[in-house]
């Protein structure tokens, strides 16, 4: 798994490539906590290149969302791959997140 981070004034975009699973979710969570520690209340996850998303990764998404919303922030998902979207939908979590078809639309929402 690789994570590329682009910071903007009101939001940070994390582009994830590869597998978010039980072997990589701790690294994923650490990256999210690191960026949240930089006072970023709003995050966009660009999941276009996510090849696999297991419950370990979904748990990180949910805990991050809860944490951000508690502080008045938001977590959005931009251009999810079919596989990322399928995992979120199978787990019934699609009602939780705001999805955007492209990264620019997600950034513009903040």
């Amino acid at each position, binding site marked *: 798994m690789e994570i590329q981070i682009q910071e903007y004034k009101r939001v940070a975009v994390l582009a994830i490539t590869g597998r978010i*699973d*039980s*072997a990589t979710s701790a690294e994923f969570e650490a990256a999210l906590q690191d960026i949240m520690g930089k006072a970023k209340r709003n995050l966009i996850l660009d999941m276009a290149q996510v090849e696999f998303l297991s*419950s370990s990764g979904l*748990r990180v998404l*949910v*805990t991050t*969302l809860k944490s951000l919303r508690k502080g008045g922030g938001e977590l959005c998902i931009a251009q999810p791959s079919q596989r990322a979207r*399928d995992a979120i939908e*199978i787990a019934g979590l699609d009602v939780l997140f705001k999805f955007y078809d492209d990264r620019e639309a997600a950034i513009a929402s903040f």
Partner: protein
Amino acid sequence: MFSLSLTVPAQLEMIESICDAVDSAAAAAGFDERARYSCQLAASEACENIVKHGYGERTSGEIEARLSASPNDLTIELIDSARPFNPANPPSTQPWSVDDPPVGGLGLLIIHRVMDEVEYERSQGQNRLLMRKHTG
């Protein structure tokens, strides 16, 4: 009839190799890409349970995967020697609100939503989990 078996160390890093084998077996069953991926997800969740809840701190265990496929039908059998853990029990279906979404139980939920049959048996010190999916 397609069959494949492999045994891997019970480590999180090894689950991907079982997923790859499941993908091959699901392809042999003629499943489309999304069905193949869903089977990989179910196998991944079951293996994660074995590593985390079954073997726990033990690092010497193994997981054996026996896969068989016939047209529109895939069977995934996972065998381990960890402590008893029964994923065939259906997950909680209690309603939740978007203000308080669940963070636990997602793995079992995925297994039961993806697979058509989930059976568990404990015998001779081994857990045996059988998961089947049919399409078409």
